[in-house]
């Protein structure tokens, strides 16, 4: 009796109609005027931090900068945002909006997942070191941009785009501390720097592999070509010439390793 219901004509009809009805019922929620996005995959960037060609060691290892000053690094953090890919026709394709705070002390922050990578053949990746001026201006932010991350100036609104802290005997203060907080998004002291790194990969409809690249950030690049000395500027905590000089230096710190 029960079994006969399962084999009945009506039951089969209902079985077929159910998913159709379900799709029709909810279809209006999915309707959009825009064409469906042609995004195929995402990609990873794995960041590693280096000093003079070998892995950065915080707190314990003693380094020497081009000015001859010895120092130790306690903190190394920076924002990356506004990622885009350049394709083989020279066209720049922005990726999904995302803001990353890379912190040498937190390994999980060094793997960046970039979403909405479209199909195409790509020759370079572009990104901003720092947080674009729009996000510096539009009130309280969340996630990587939340103010409790300690990368926001409260007295003169704006993000610290990159931060290098440590100690150096060249600093005369009792703690020998240096604190380089590079920020400023306005006028002549805008430190926002765009980086373009050549790479090569192809994404097609049937590509299964997720593109993955290793990116090195060389901290030694902070000290040249513009002279950056701990003795001269142990504390940089405001937009200005000193911050701008360092930003021009660190713009060159990234390279693709594979």
């Amino acid at each position, binding site marked *: 009796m029960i079994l006969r219901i399962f084999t009945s004509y009506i039951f089969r009809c209902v079985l077929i109609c159910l998913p159709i009805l379900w799709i029709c019922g909810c279809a209006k929620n999915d309707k959009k005027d825009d064409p469906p996005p042609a995004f195929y995959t995402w990609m990873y960037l794995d960041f590693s931090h280096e000093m003079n060609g070998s892995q950065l060691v915080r707190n314990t290892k003693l380094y020497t900068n081009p000015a001859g000053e010895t120092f130790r690094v306690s903190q190394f953090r920076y924002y990356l945002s506004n990622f885009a890919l350049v394709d083989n026709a020279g066209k720049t394709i922005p990726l999904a909006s995302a803001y990353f705070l890379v912190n040498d002390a937190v390994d999980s922050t060094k793997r960046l997942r970039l979403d909405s990578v479209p199909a195409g053949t790509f020759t370079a990746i572009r990104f901003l070191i720092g947080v674009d001026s729009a996000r510096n201006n539009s*009130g309280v932010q969340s996630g990587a941009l939340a*103010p*409790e991350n300690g990368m*926001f100036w409260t*007295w*003169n*609104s704006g993000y610290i785009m990159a931060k290098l802290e440590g100690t150096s005997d060249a600093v005369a203060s009792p703690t020998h501390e240096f604190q380089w907080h590079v920020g400023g998004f306005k006028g002549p002291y805008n430190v926002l720097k765009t980086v373009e790194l050549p790479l090569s990969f192809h994404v097609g409809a049937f590509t299964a592999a997720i593109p993955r690249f290793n990116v090195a950030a060389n901290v030694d690049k902070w000290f040249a070509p513009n002279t950056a000395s701990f003795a001269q500027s142990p504390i940089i905590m405001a937009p200005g010439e000193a911050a701008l000089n360092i930003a021009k230096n660190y713009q060159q710190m990234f390279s693709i390793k594979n």
Partner: protein
Amino acid sequence: MRHKALYIAVAFGTLLLLAHACKKENRNGSGSPGPEPVTLSLPPGFPDPVYNFSGNPLTGQGIALGRFIFYDYRLSKDSTVSCGFCHQQFAAFGHFDHALSHGVGGKQGNRSVPAIFNMIWQKEFMWDGGVNNLEIQPLTPLTDHREMGVDLKELLQKMQGDPRYRQQFKAAFGTEEITSERMFKAITQFVGTMISGNSRYDSIIRKVPGAAFSPDEQVGYAIYQQKCAACHKEPLFTDLSYRSNGLPYLAALNDVGRMKITGNTADYLKFKVPSLRNIIRSSPYMHDGRYLDIFQVFDFYDHGVKDTITTDVLVRKGVSLTDQQKRQLYLFLNTLTDYTLINNKDLSEVLIEP
């Protein structure tokens, strides 16, 4: 017959399934109770606000949470001072009788507490305009070691541990999660409701029947229009610009004003023009609170202005005022006191048990 019954049953089941599948789409619809939207009533004749709440919808629960935070002294490092400790309602949310701000551990700042009302019309905040959005303004007093002196991460943990906060965040934002974004948006909602545009002056301007200046107030208004209104512009009674009024520099405070923010020497000793609304209630005066009495301010403009390279051309030669004019100006300024602000029960201190 049996088949027909089955068919109806299955059709009904399908409908139920459909309703269930689509329900999650409507979870935040009008059917379920949530934060109640609030519309601010803005004073007639005021310009459009700079802060418009489009990204921070104003709700009764959001305002209530912001008010609780504003008056919660436990949020400071040593549980002594709240926002409302310095921003007193009876002083138009300035700090009565205190030349310089003071905070945790008896520490003193180097500027006076600004009276905070009509903040949604400001494009920048603090005496030097260093803060560029109303939402993030509270960051400064919360974290400054001379004010509330807290670490923001610790503060959020502290709030998350308090069931009253979890309950209020849920009421305002839907879940018990306490984030800095929600906290600052709630404070912004409460501070946004501190609107002053209903003084006797306003009634007179709007020609409310029976509202009129006395003869002395009328003359005082004319003196104001002639000698003050260029900077303290109606209807906000400030043009929101930064100017040096020639107030002599004090080496002890070494406050260079807006130059600290812009790095531009042309901004040396410039500070934001404060509003004259509620001015008689919000003494002391000037960015460093050096004058306790408004007549000292009149005397300063009359014969105390120091002409430096950045002193504003409008006051460089001083603003002459006779004793009678000072009295008349004082009487006019009294008409700018807004009792619907300083007596508004919706803005008053909430008692918070430890």
